[in-house]
C-alpha cells in the first residue's frame, strides 16, 4: 500500500514492513531530546523504580534551557543532578550552561537530525524538527517510558498534504507564512494529524525558515510536521504516489502581508496593516521559533543605527550559543547592543516567563511561540506576536509597526 512520509518513518522505527493511519505501533526513536524541566523528574522516578540505565543514552540529548538563570536552589540541584546522572549514564549530548541552547534548536547546530529520523521529545515544540525532514513528536511524560525501556507507543496519524505556492512580498518572513497558514488550516483539521509540506515556497526556504513554519503548526494541535523535500546533500524521503491523505490544501502566499497574532492566542492572526496604533512597553526577539539567524539578521537590519524607544525594554536572545557566536561574527550583536537591547543566549527566556517577565499592564510584542495571557509573566499583560523585523521596528517606534514605517537611518 502506498505510504505517506510519516507512515514510512513510523514503520521503520517500529520494525514493521508498513503501517497505516490509525495503527498503533511501538517505536524506538533515533533521537531522544529532553531538558532541565523534565530530565531530573523522569530520571529520579525511574531510579527509584529500579531502572539503573538508559537504553537510548547514545541517542539522547539533554539541554539546560528553561531554568539556566535561576536563584532557586532546587533548580540548581536539578542542574547538578543532570550533570552527574548524564555522565554516569553515558548520555551522548549534554549541553551544559554556557554551551547550551533551546532543545528544539541545538540538535540542528550539532547536525544530529537527518531526513527520515524519528525524534521523540518531552517538550511541545518538537515538530519544528520537521525542517530537517525528520518526524519530531512531543510526548510529554511519555518520555519517561522511553528513558526507561527505550521505546513507547504511538498511534500513526493521518496526514494533511499542504502545498505552499507563490513568491513572498518584501519583508514577509517565514513567521508570517507560518502563523497565517496555521490559522487557515485551523485546529479542527490540524489536531492529531501530520502535516507534509510541499511546493515551491518550501523548496526555497532554508532550514531556519522551515523550522519556523513547522514550529507554528504546533498551535493547531499537530502530532508532527515534515518538510518532504530533502535538504541539499541529504537523501530524499518522499511519500509514495497514491498515498492516502486526510485532506489536501493549497495556499498561495503571493498577496500575504505582514501578520500579527493579537491576544488572546496565536490563532488570532490579523494583518499588521489592520492594527490600530498600539503602544508597547516590552519587546522580545528570541525563542525556539523566533531566535534563529533569519530572525537575528532581520532584527539587526532594523536596529542597526537606531535606538530602542525610551519607554520600551528590548530583550534579544539567540536560540543557541552557536547562533549567538554567529551573531557575534556577523556583527549583529553590536547593532543590538548599540540600540540598547538586553542580550542573553540559548534560553527560552521570556517565552517561558522566567527571564525578563512581563508585569501587570505591560504590552509586549515578541517572536515568542505563544501569546496566551500569563505565558510571559503577568496575566494582566497583553502579548502580541510578530516577525523579528516587526518586533525590532516596534521596539524603536514604541508602538506596533512594520520596519517600512520607521524614519530612514541618518
Amino acid at each position, binding site marked *: 500500500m502506498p505510504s505517506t512520509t510519516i507512515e514510512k518513518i513510523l514503520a521503520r522505527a517500529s520494525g514493521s514492513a508498513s503501517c497505516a493511519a490509525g495503527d*498503533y505501533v511501538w517505536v524506538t526513536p533515533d533521537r531522544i531530546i529532553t531538558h532541565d524541566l523534565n530530565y531530573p523528574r523522569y530520571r529520579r522516578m525511574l531510579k527509584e*523504580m529500579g531502572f539503573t540505565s538508559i537504553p537510548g543514552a547514545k541517542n539522547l540529548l539533554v539541554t539546560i534551557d528553561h531554568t539556566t538563570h535561576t536563584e532557586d536552589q532546587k533548580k540548581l540541584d536539578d542542574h547538578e543532578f543532570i550533570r552527574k546522572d548524564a555522565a554516569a549514564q553515558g548520555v551522548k549530548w549534554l549541553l551544559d550552561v554556557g554551551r547550551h541552547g533551546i532543545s528544539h534548536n541545538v540538535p540542528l547546530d550539532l547536525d544530529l537530525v537527518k531526513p527520515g529520523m524519528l525524534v521523540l521529545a518531552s517538550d511541545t515544540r518538537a515538530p519544528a524538527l520537521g525542517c530537517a525532514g525528520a518526524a519530531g513528536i512531543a*510526548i510529554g511524560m511519555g518520555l519517561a*517510558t522511553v528513558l526507561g525501556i527505550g521505546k513507547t507507543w504511538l*498511534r500513526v496519524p493521518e496526514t494533511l498534504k499542504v502545498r505552499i505556492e507563490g513568491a513572498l512580498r518584501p519583508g514577509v518572513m517565514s513567521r508570517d507564512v507560518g502563523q497565517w497558514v496555521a490559522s487557515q488550516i485551523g485546529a479542527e483539521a490540524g*489536531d492529531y494529524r501530520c502535516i507534509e509540506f510541499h511546493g515551491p515556497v518550501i523548496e526555497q526556504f532554508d532550514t531556519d525558515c522551515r523550522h519556523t513554519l513547522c514550529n507554528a503548526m504546533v498551535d493547531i*494541535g499537530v502530532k508532527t510536521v515534515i518538510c518532504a523535500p530533502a535538504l541539499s546533500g541529504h537523501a530524499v524521503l518522499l511519500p509514495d504516489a497514491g498515498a492516502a491523505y486526510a485532506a489536501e490544501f493549497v495556499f498561495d502566499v503571493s498577496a500575504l502581508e505582514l501578520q500579527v497574532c493579537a491576544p488572546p492566542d496565536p490563532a488570532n492572526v490579523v494583518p499588521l496593516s489592520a492594527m490600530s496604533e498600539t503602544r508597547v512597553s516590552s519587546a522580545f526577539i528570541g525563542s525556539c521559533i523566533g531566535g534563529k539567524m533569519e530572525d537575528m539578521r532581520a532584527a539587526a537590519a532594523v536596529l542597526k543605527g537606531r535606538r530602542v524607544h525610551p519607554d520600551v525594554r528590548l530583550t534579544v536572545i539567540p536560540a543557541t550559543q552557536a547562533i549567538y557566536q554567529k551573531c557575534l561574527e556577523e556583527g549583529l550583536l553590536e547593532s543590538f547592543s548599540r540600540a540598547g537591547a538586553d542580550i542573553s543566549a540559548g534560553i527560552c527566556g521570556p517565552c517561558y516567563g522566567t527571564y525578563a517577565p512581563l508585569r501587570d499592564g505591560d504590552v509586549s510584542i515578541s517572536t515568542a511561540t505563544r501569546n496566551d495571557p500569563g505565558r510571559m509573566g503577568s496575566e494582566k499583560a497583553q502579548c502580541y506576536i510578530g516577525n523579528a523585523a516587526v518586533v525590532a521596528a516596534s521596539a524603536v517606534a514604541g508602538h506596533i509597526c512594520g520596519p517600512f514605517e520607521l524614519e530612514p537611518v541618518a
Partner: protein
Amino acid sequence: MNNDQSLRRRGHVWVFGHDVPNDGGVMTIEMTRQIVYDPNILSKHAMAAIDANFPNRAKPGDFVVAGKNFGSGPLHVQGPLGLKGLGVSVLAESTARSFFRLAIAVGLPILPFAKGILEFVSVGDEVDVDFSSGSITNLTSGRKMMFDPLPTELSQIVTLGGEQKWLETQLTGV
C-alpha cells in the same frame, strides 16, 4: 491476552458535546492552576465547568460520552486524574492527541475514537463496555455495536493503573 485481564466497565451514560477542552472543561481552570495531583481532590471538580452536578452524581463505572476533539488544549494531567478519581471512563467520537496520551499515562479507561457513539447511546442509558475488544452493549436499548478498541498493550497499561505501574512490570518481567 487472558480474559481476566480484559478492561471492562458497566455504568450509566453522561453525554457532553463536541470540543470539550481539557482545561476549563474536563477540569476547572482553577484546579489546573493548582499543583494538585491527588485524584480524590481533583474528582470533586471533574467536568464541573460544564455540569456542576456531575462530580456529586456520577457513580464509579459511569461513562463520560463526548463528541469530537475531546480534551483539547494543554497537556495538563489534572483533567484525566479527576475522571480517574471518580472511577468513570471516557467514550469519545474523537480525542485530542494530548488528552489520549495523558489518559493512558494515568490509567483512565478510554475509547478515544468511538465513531458513532453519540448516536448509539443517550443520557442515562446503562451500557457495558469492553475496551479491549471495542464491544459496547447498550443495556437500555438492547443494541450491541463494535467500536475501535483500545489496543491490547494500552488496555494492559490502563488495567495496571497507568504507565508508571506498567513500567514496573517491564522492569521485573512480570
